[in-house]
């Protein structure tokens, strides 16, 4: 390589990921007394402690996403969290926002810099303390959105966009949505019992007026959920609607962090990659049906990668709403209960701390890759407010060369 040029291509690896246990948002939630930035810091410290062979000053950049960037969830989170986590001041950092796909965008942005050859190692994560910073708080949408009908009135209310999906696809019944939600709860519970979730959790000391405690597990799970209970829930977004608390992800507090590295850094620091990045895509849809977003983003990513949906052996789909996942499954001809999809359940049970969720999908996919050497490719995908979807395709380094 001559003067004035860099290695313009490098493989990008997902080396590791950790997260805080997710808490129920609000005064009764376990993180009510915990700062948002501290959640991001805890996830970061836990990640770095697990990877002691990586010198902290080798980190080229830190991207931390949040949707509602204000107060203790503002102030250029990547930089502030890095300082608070004890990274050397030589390590830079920044903040990212793509609503629910903020953390996913942290990963793809850092990955792009690594792929370009500018970076060797980066941290990418997200945080959302929805209790302290409800979505849209203090937002001031431009009146033109409504006066010029640039978006429908439903677009800014996620529950209403989910109702709109039921309208558009009558075959997506409330019963199917409820069953999907119940299965998510059951699958997460089974994964917890099998000890699949806990290894990536970083315990967080939590303070309340009644003393210190320790958050060690996701707080919002409801493993006892039954179809009868679900059928009786209110439909808060529309009278006689279909979207309920039981088939939606709950408001959640939590943070995630991931470690990405290029090929040379993996060798240099003796890291063990868990996934290789194949490609990624983001795409837009009508904001009123934002839940459809992962469909075009996934099609775009598959096209770029030269793959077909049949090549994907494992799916980690963010469960903003049951109906939104089901619309994806129907589109690609997958069963509601396809065992390749969210085998350990999803956001309906563990929660969806908006900008933090993307890296959670990735760390779970990475663990499943280790258990499934017969799978070569996996997909992480999620819908995004105001009508977007994000999809990242990963390759399993443990792939044994056989067809699934």
């Amino acid at each position, binding site marked *: 390589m001559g003067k004035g040029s860099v290695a313009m291509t490098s493989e990008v690896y997902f080396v590791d990921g950790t997260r805080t246990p997710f808490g129920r948002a609000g005064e009764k939630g376990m993180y009510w007394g915990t700062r948002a930035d501290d959640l991001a*810091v*805890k996830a970061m*410290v836990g990640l770095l402690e697990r990877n002691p062979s990586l010198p902290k000053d080798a980190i080229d950049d830190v991207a931390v996403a949040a949707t509602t960037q204000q107060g203790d969830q503002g102030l250029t989170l990547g930089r502030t969290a890095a300082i*608070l*986590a*004890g990274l050397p001041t030589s390590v830079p950092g920044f903040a990212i926002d793509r609503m629910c796909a903020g953390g996913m965008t942290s990963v793809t942005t850092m990955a792009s810099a690594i792929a370009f050859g500018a970076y060797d190692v980066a941290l990418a994560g997200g945080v959302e303390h929805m209790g302290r910073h409800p979505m849209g708080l203090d937002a001031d949408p431009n009146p033109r959105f409504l006066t010029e009908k640039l978006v429908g009135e439903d677009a800014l209310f996620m529950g209403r966009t989910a109702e709109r999906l039921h309208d558009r696809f009558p075959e997506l019944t409330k019963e199917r949505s409820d069953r999907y939600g119940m299965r998510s709860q059951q699958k997460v519970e089974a994964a917890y019992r099998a000890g699949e979730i806990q290894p990536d959790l*970083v*315990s*967080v*000391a939590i*303070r309340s*007026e*009644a*003393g*210190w*405690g*320790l958050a*060690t597990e996701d707080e919002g799970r409801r493993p006892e959920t039954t179809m009868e209970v679900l059928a009786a829930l209110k439909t808060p977004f529309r009278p006689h609607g279909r979207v309920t608390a039981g088939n939606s992800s709950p408001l959640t507090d939590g943070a995630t962090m991931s470690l990405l590295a290029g090929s040379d850094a993996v060798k240099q620091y003796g890291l063990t990659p868990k996934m290789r990045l194949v490609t990624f895509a983001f795409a837009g849809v009508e904001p009123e049906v934002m839940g459809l977003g992962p469909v075009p983003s996934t099609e775009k990513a598959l096209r770029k990668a030269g793959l077909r949906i049949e090549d994907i052996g494992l799916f980690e789909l963010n469960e903003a709403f049951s109906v939104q996942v089901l619309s994806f499954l129907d589109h690609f001809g997958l069963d509601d209960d396809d065992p390749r999809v969210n085998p350990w359940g999803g956001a309906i049970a563990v929660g969806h701390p908006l900008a933090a969720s993307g890296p959670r999908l990735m760390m779970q996919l990475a663990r499943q890759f280790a258990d499934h050497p017969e799978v070569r490719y996996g997909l992480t995908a999620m819908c995004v407010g105001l009508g977007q979807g994000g999809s990242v395709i990963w390759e399993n380094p443990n792939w044994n060369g056989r067809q699934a």
Partner: protein
Amino acid sequence: MTNDPTTQYRGLDFTPLLELSTDEVVTHSYVKDIALPSGRRLALITLDNGRDHTRPSTLGPATLVELAAVLDELAQRASAHEIDAVGITGKPFILAAGADLSKVNDIPSAAAAKLLAQLGHSTLGRLGVLGVPSFAFVNGLALGGGVEIGLNSTYRTVDSSAAAIALPEVFLGIIPGWGGATLLPNLIGIENALKVVLENPLKMNRMLSATDAFELGMFDAKFDHVNFLEDSLRWADGVLGGSVTVERPHQPGRIERTVKWPMAIKIATDTVRSRIGSVPKSPYRALDLLAKAKDGDIAAGFAREDEALAELISGDQFAASIYAFNLVQHRAKRPVGAPDSSLARKVGKVGVIGAGLMASQFALLFLRRLEVPVVITDLDQARVDKGLAYIRGELQKLADRGRLSPDQLGRLKALLHGTTDRSEFADCDWVIEAVFEELSVKQDVFADFEKIVSPETVFATNTSSLSVNAIGAELEHPERLVGFHFFNPVAVMPLIEVVNAPKTNETTLATAMAVAKNLRKTAIVTTDSTGFVVNRVLAKVLGEAMRAVDDGTSFETVDEALAPLGLPMPPSELLDLVGLKVGAHVLDTHHAAWPERFYRSENLHRLAELGSLREKDSKGKAKGISKDAERLVRANLTPGGRPHSTAEVLQAVQDGFADEVHRMLEEGVVSAPEDIDLALILGAGYPFQMGGLTPYLDRVGASRRVFGGTFHTPVILGAANRAQQQELVG
């Protein structure tokens, strides 16, 4: 459990203490079960008084009774195998700041004091006999009883950012008596324990950082703040499971106990005696307890601590110490007689008239603390350059010691300027003089500078013996002049006497108070009266000392006579320290003001000319009064004088003090005896056990002898003597 040290307290009735503390800010003990990574369960106690960090959790009787009940419940759960360990930690930044000092004056008797000691032992001692290991997670400030929570626990971790770790009891006139004096030496060895229990408290109550405390062996592990509790819990899990081995290299072995221990105690006793004399009781009780802790018998040690605390808490020295402590902690921060701070002018540039040593020390202090441009001037460039070189050298020394970063050094050097062109003082907001201590010189200097500066610029004079009013007599705007009396060494001594002269206006006074505060000094406001407060008191004791000497009393007898006060140094040493010439001058000044009350000594002038009073060895250590000095004094005794007895000298000084302090208050030099005590504690190092001065004068009867009253009502006495006093009065 063999030798359970709490057995001796079972069945004691602590309700009398609870009745005394109905308004206690109770620190509650909250319990939450924690699932450790291994699956073991740790019951975590959080101590939290429900207030923010400005009101640290303290350990009053109600707090201790609640904690004891919680620990009893946890012991039961431990025996039922419901929990594998107990942890104890605090609200953010604070574990506990020790016993609740706001309540000590309510303790009515030695018996109640003993009960308080027993309640502490009974409660904290339970941490060691729960049936499962206990872990103190010291997450922040831990003083006194806070540290003893840790010492009574099986294991201890500390947050590396903890604000302070200390056993300050001896500083306050008591001893670490909830296990500290017994458990600490058995944990970290006698030498380290002496440092924590004795040395540090006697060094102006120095505190330990978490790192220091960890290195001394007070903690088994240290973790950074970012994950302190998480890391501590994980560590505790490792200890419980055996994957973490706890090593305590400082724990004393047999040889240390038999050989090193008594030697260390003897050396420490000698050091303390030579440094502060034998008047203060608490250091010697602490030494006694530490010496006896050698036997490793914890239960017996607790009983010894109970006795010591009962006696000290109910004694006069502790009462005076708490009074003094409150002055330094509270009154020092809210000076009495100061105008509203909003009246203060902003000081954006400082001028120092003079470039000699005192002036340079001023310039250095103003630079470091105010971080504004400081200009110095003198008669010629050579003097200015010398001053600048001194100041820059001192700044460089600070930088070399890491006290200033290179950027700070650059900033301060750039702010410093020296000139012979007085017009550069034109935009100064504050001009302080450090010129020769002569009225006409100071008058002329200020008159000259008044032509240069704005009419609002504040003039400050550091005079110690001249009238501030007289210095300002020639000024067009005398209302801008204020006395600003530092004590030597300027950088170290925490007191400034701010002299509110008759013409000083409120803006000027408020500015002076603000400047003092920004210099991180404690200011007291005095009137423009000879000697202000501190020098007037020192002139009294030195005058009475010289009167006795001139009458044929030996310096040794005078020094011995005043030993029972426990002053920081005897008169002969004080004269040596301030300089004989200065001492003679101080006596002259006060004699001139009040010839009938203040003694001046021609012999002191003669000694000043001779040059030295005390003979010193090659290392500079005083061996005694020099033969030449003795001869010189003997040759010039007061005609008709006779040597004074030690009792006479002592009473003359006590009564002289009582009279002079009483007069100062009558004259309104300061507003209250508290200000005099505060000034003497901070400006002259008068001891806590005297409460500065006035509590001592009350308790030895000097106040009654001299003016038939007392400075304080009720008199500041320990509980043991309060009852007696009431009988006298009644």
